[in-house]
């Protein structure tokens, strides 16, 4: 059951995301294309179906009403709506999707679903009424609609019953083939089993009809399925062939039989055209006969039949072939692939092979290397996902705030296909959202006149861009608003008492970084969107948590730009390999300022005998790694080894090591918990990494190393 719920949530959330993207895109164009309408229809139908199966009735109801609405739009075309209606439609859709999402969140948090959804349903109904009333003919008024449809439903059920009897179990349809399915006796919930069969068949894009038609929502149909069987109607023999294997896979199916529809067969035999025209007649009939049905509170057969008849063709290209995989499985795959790469190089460069002339072996070995390299690339790329999902969400935020704050802003997205590790994508969503909100709220001028007076485009622009630079992704959020006044920031910081030195000594860069201190908010008033004083400091913390950095630049009158530098993956970092004795260590490149050879004369001893070296007119302490870590090495003379000038946020010093081995991208692995018991993290060993030849190198934490060293001396 949990598994089903997980699947349901995953599926629904994916659909909601699709829907959101689609809505934003459509609103930009000001119109729903036929494809959009069909897609929304399909999404709502799926949500409705799966929600009904999971018994989330509120979700089902909302989805159902939206489905009805789009049924109408699809039948009448988007052109039938005038401008104001279109606007209302977009707002209504955003409201409804929010309502749906709210409910889904409740399910995720295991909270009870809201029972009062009348408001949203009333909104949808009244809108449907509004758009349909000027057309006059289609339907009359919503109360009547519901009345009519309520009558319509039982009548329809009766009709089916009659038909079932009349045709000795075979329902009335133009489809030439039937598959009659009987479920195992006593298997229970036959209607849901039937529905699951339907869902499975839909996945292979089959066009079919089924009877009873309301299996999905009406549990009474279970009995008719037990008595008469469940019917699938298919249009061709090929479809029957396709459907049978799927049906065989379904659980609890006792028997199935393929029946040819005698009536249709006859018709086809007489002449081909009638069959075709009949089909088209049937299609036209559907909206006419059930013109009032769309607003019905129970899905009407028409609403269900039509999407299946026409949907497969439209849906085919939209269907994505994605599967969701547990992240830990991926991780073990990546680990094994890494191992294969190492083993491969161990085999091909085995000492046993030396001095042997093995042409064929070398050829195959080269091929193997190429393949394993490809394999590694693919394995690494599996965890990478484009940032577009996160970026698209900003569209929605800009849209909502634009309406609320009455500012005209367009969001330009650049480089949304940039790929970043999944865990990082997940954790940068909130920071980006916060910065975008800040730009909307504080950055963009409240008055259009101010912008025009400043000679700017009346429509403000926020640019959200992502670019790759080797090992980092740079995300910038830029606005062309009023910019930040450094004097004001400084004054406010002074008032809040967060300055640590005289105000006059602050540089512009330092002032802007004050924004990211806890308890700083430039907005005097707290608004709905920003200004609670917990802002940029949280953003900074979140960005730093994934190993990124954040910086702000701003110019008064021209706008501000926030830059996030995020590592591609948390697990991979750029490192400099160094050796001390027989041990190898990795220093993160970000910490290295320079490496230098030095002469004995340049080393100065301080009062307590510690070595100090002068770099660029400043003095820095020297830490000998072999001394600190007690490693035996032949290189103890300062002239033989090499100094690496390293730097962290507040410390700068030189590390004396034997040799530089070269720069490398390394996969960070934590040290085993067992050895962490010995407090080695405090001694500056942050993790370890596997080198290409299978050996292990220890990653140093430059900041902790310094602390450890200063305790020692």
């Amino acid at each position: 059951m949990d598994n089903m719920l997980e699947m349901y949530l995953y599926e629904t959330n994916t659909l909601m995301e699709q829907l959101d993207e689609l809505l934003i895109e459509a609103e930009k164009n000001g119109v729903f294309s036929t494809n959009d309408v069909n897609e929304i229809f399909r999404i709502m139908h799926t949500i409705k179906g799966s929600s009904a199966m999971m018994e989330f009735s509120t979700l089902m109801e909302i989805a159902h009403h939206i489905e009805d609405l789009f049924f109408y739009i699809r039948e009448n075309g988007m052109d039938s709506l005038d401008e104001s209606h279109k606007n209302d439609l977009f707002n209504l859709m955003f409201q409804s999707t929010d309502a749906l999402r709210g409910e889904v969140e409740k399910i995720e948090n295991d909270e009870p679903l809201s029972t009062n959804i009348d408001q949203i349903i009333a909104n949808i109904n009244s809108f449907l009424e509004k758009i349909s009333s000027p057309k006059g003919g289609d339907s009359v008024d919503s109360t009547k609609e519901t009345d009519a449809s309520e009558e319509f439903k039982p009548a329809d059920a009766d009709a089916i019953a009659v038909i079932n009897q009349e045709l000795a179990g075979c329902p009335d349809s133009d489809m030439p083939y039937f598959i009659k399915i009987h479920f195992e006796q006593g298997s229970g919930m036959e209607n849901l089993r039937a529905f699951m069969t339907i869902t499975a068949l839909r996945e292979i894009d089959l066009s079919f009809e089924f009877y009873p038609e309301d299996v999905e929502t009406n549990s009474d149909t279970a009995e008719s399925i037990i008595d008469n069987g469940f019917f699938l109607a298919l249009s061709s023999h090929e479809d029957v062939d396709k459907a049978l294997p799927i049906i065989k896979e379904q659980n609890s199916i006792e028997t199935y039989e393929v029946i040819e529809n005698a009536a249709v067969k006859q018709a086809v035999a007489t002449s081909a055209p009638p069959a075709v025209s009949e089909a088209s007649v049937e299609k036209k009939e559907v909206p006419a006969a059930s013109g009032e049905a769309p607003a019905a509170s129970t899905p009407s057969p028409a609403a269900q039949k039509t999407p299946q008849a026409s949907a497969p063709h439209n849906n085919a290209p939209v269907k994505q072939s994605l599967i969701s995989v547990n992240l830990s499985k991926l991780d073990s795959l990546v680990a094994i692939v890494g191992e294969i790469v190492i083993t491969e190089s161990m085999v091909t460069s085995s000492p046993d092979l030396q001095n042997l002339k093995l042409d064929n072996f070398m050829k195959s070995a080269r091929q193997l290397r190429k393949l394993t390299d490809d394999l590694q690339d693919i394995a690494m790329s599996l965890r990478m996902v484009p940032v577009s999902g996160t970026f698209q969400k900003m569209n929605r935020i800009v849209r909502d705030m634009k309406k609320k704050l009455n500012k005209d802003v367009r969001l330009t997205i650049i480089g949304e296909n940039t790929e970043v590790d999944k865990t990082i994508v997940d954790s940068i969503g909130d920071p980006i959202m916060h910065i975008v909100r800040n730009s909307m709220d504080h950055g963009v001028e409240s008055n259009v006149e101010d912008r025009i007076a400043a000679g700017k485009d009346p429509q403000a622009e926020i640019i959200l861009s992502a670019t790759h630079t080797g090992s980092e992704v740079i995300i910038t959020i830029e606005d062309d608003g009023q910019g930040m006044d450094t004097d004001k920031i400084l004054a406010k910081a002074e008032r809040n008492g967060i300055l640590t030195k005289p105000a006059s000594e602050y540089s512009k860069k330092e002032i802007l970084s004050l924004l990211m201190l806890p308890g700083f908010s430039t907005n005097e008033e707290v608004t709905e969107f920003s200004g609670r004083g917990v802002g940029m400091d949280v953003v900074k913390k979140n960005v730093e948590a994934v190993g990124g950095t954040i910086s702000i630049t701003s110019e008064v009158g021209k706008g501000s730009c926030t830059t996030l530098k995020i590592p591609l993956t948390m697990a991979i970092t750029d490192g400099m390999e160094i050796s001390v004795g027989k041990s190898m260590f990795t220093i993160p490149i970000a910490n290295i300022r320079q490496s230098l050879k030095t002469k004995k004369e340049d080393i100065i001893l301080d009062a307590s005998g510690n070595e100090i070296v002068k770099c660029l007119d400043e003095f820095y302490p020297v830490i000998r790694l072999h001394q600190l870590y007690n490693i035996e090495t032949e290189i103890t003379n300062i002239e033989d080894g090499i100094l690496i000038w390293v730097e962290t946020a507040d410390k700068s010093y030189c590390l004396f090591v034997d040799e530089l081995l070269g720069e490398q991208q390394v996969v960070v692995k934590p040290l085993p918990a067992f050895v962490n018991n010995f407090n080695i993290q405090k001694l500056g060993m942050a993790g370890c990494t596997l080198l290409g030849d299978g050996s292990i190198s220890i990653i140093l934490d430059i900041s902790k190393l310094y602390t450890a060293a200063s305790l020692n001396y």
Partner: protein
Amino acid sequence: MSADTINTLEETQVMEGNAPVSTERFLTFSCDGLNIGVSTNYVIEIITDHAITMLPLVPDYVKGIISLRGQIIPIIDIRLRIGKTPIDYTSTTCVIVLDINSLPIGIIVDAVQQVMDIDQTKISPVPVENQQELISGMVSTANRSVILFLDCEQLVQTY
């Protein structure tokens, strides 16, 4: 030290006649002349010839870490851990990789001997005057040798 030098530290009475009720499989290895057994439930595999990366500033019995199929595993030397003198590693020296409550750890032993079924009811506690660190019990076998049992939980305990 070879595997054949078996030093029976303690004489225990061999229980007679009882059919094994609850047997458990143990992997036995030798270490400084002692026969030590470890439940096969803990054993993942036995590896030889693995390059151990030394870690600075850890107790001497922690030999370092190895990478086993991408997994980083700490290695300790049982000889040093129970306070014996170190010896040079020979061709029979090997690493037994254990998984103790999903915490992998490798132990260096002089030699691996065999896997045997041992009736758990026959395992007796170590006499107080002969208490030794890391040993949770002992049993004597048919050929009059004594097997000590490694206390795996204690092995990974922190101080």
